[in-house]
């Protein structure tokens, strides 16, 4: 693989953020500490296998490690919008704003779920107040 400018710096940055030492990351990625050190200091090129092991061990996206940019990073700046059906459920049950926001955050974090029969949650219909109440109950926020 050709040399990737800035790769070593980005690996070190995310490793630091995860609170890992070079030794710990090297162990997790099954690489030698000297090899990792040379890669981080950009004294050495890296092959696909080692790059993927490091990316996996530090939970980093390949896009960022290779290009230094992320797609769609502006998405996270959106304001919180409470859907009308959640508003209705919150009114029915007397949920506080923070409880309502917590339920919304839990629901928005779900992309898909899979069960033994292959059933899954995915964007198919609008949520009803009953759906929100069920989710709230499953989270046991009152306990």
């Amino acid at each position, binding site marked *: 693989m050709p040399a990737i400018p800035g790769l070593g710096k980005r690996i070190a940055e995310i490793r630091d953020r995860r609170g890992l030492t070079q030794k710990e990351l090297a162990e997790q990625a099954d690489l030698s500490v000297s090899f990792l050190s040379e890669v981080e200091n950009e004294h050495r090129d890296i092959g696909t296998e080692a790059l993927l092991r490091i990316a996996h061990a530090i939970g980093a996206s390949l896009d960022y490690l290779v290009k230094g940019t*992320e797609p769609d990073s502006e*998405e996270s700046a*959106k304001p919180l919008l409470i859907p009308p059906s959640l508003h209705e459920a919150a009114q029915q049950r007397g949920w506080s704003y923070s409880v309502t926001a917590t339920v919304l955050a839990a629901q928005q974090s*779900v992309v*898909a779920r899979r069960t033994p029969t292959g*059933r899954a949650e995915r964007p*198919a219909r609008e949520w009803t107040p009953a*759906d929100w109440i069920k989710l709230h109950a499953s989270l046991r926020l009152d306990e």
Partner: protein
Amino acid sequence: MSNLSKNPEVIRLAHLLGLGRRGNCLERIRKYAHQKVQELVSRFPIDTFDSFLRLISSALGVQIEFITQDEDIDRLAFKHAAISPTIRQQLVAEFLRVDTEGYLLQHPHPMPGDRRFVAFVDARGPRSRRAYFTAWHELTHLLVHPPQLALPGFRRTVVSRIQGDPIESLVNVIAGELAFYEPLFRPILDEETDRIGRLTFGVIDRARVRATPEASLFAAAIASVRLSRMAACVVRVESALRKGEVRELLSPQLSLDNESMTRQLEPRLRVVEVIPNEAAKASSLTIFRNMRVPPRSVLHHAYEAATDVELEAPEDQSWWETTQGGQLPTCHLLVQAIRRGKYVYGLILPGPN
């Protein structure tokens, strides 16, 4: 499969992916997924399934976390606390109270370099056999996710609890192909097949262990049959009612004559899954789903066995009856049956004349 290509939801997905609405949409979505994978593999050459899974997951920004014991939930909730303040409750609800296999969450505020998704996969006990496939299922969901729907407002989501969901079926087809990615799996399968001269469960299992030992034997058998150039068909059999009998059982009429109905409805050993390859579809091998397994077939003997067994025998397709009671045309078969725990699988090949 052909019905799936005409399903409105599959057609809509093809349209949203910019693949048009006409023709075989399933095939176009499959090609789209494989093309994306191929582009990645050409940039980052890999030669093992471990690397392949790491490549696709890191490229899609997905961290896969396997839950191998209940105690993992606390550790993973702590590790991914930034995803949601209720992450622990969510994981407990999904994996300790509900029978969820895979749970894909989106990170709301990822730091630069963080993966945007975490796929939690149940790999506890007997689920460990399916965990590898479940991980590929979750990845495939993102691989064929239309970019214009990749906004929080569309990701929220909701629930379609319908068995046989077309998008889930489509995702399963592609996930099955990626879990046994042909450029990596075929050379191993061919090498093992050449040693014996034909496909057997032994060949499939050796190829599975060499290529991707986390995968289940049944998933490996489906992939091997798909890749085999010779006609072959893999089946799973279990005691079941006919479709019509299930309808009768669920009918409100049953309550009027409960005793006589329940007396008649007796589950029989039937083919509950059947996956023929293209060569088998073009041949006279014509075993269908829901067909009753002939009592003299090795599939029946394997089902009745008290322990794990592997049996093989030459049989004839004319032993099989259609649901209407008609006989299938004569065709010499070589049938292998294998029992693993409560599951019985069959590998059916055209036999010598």
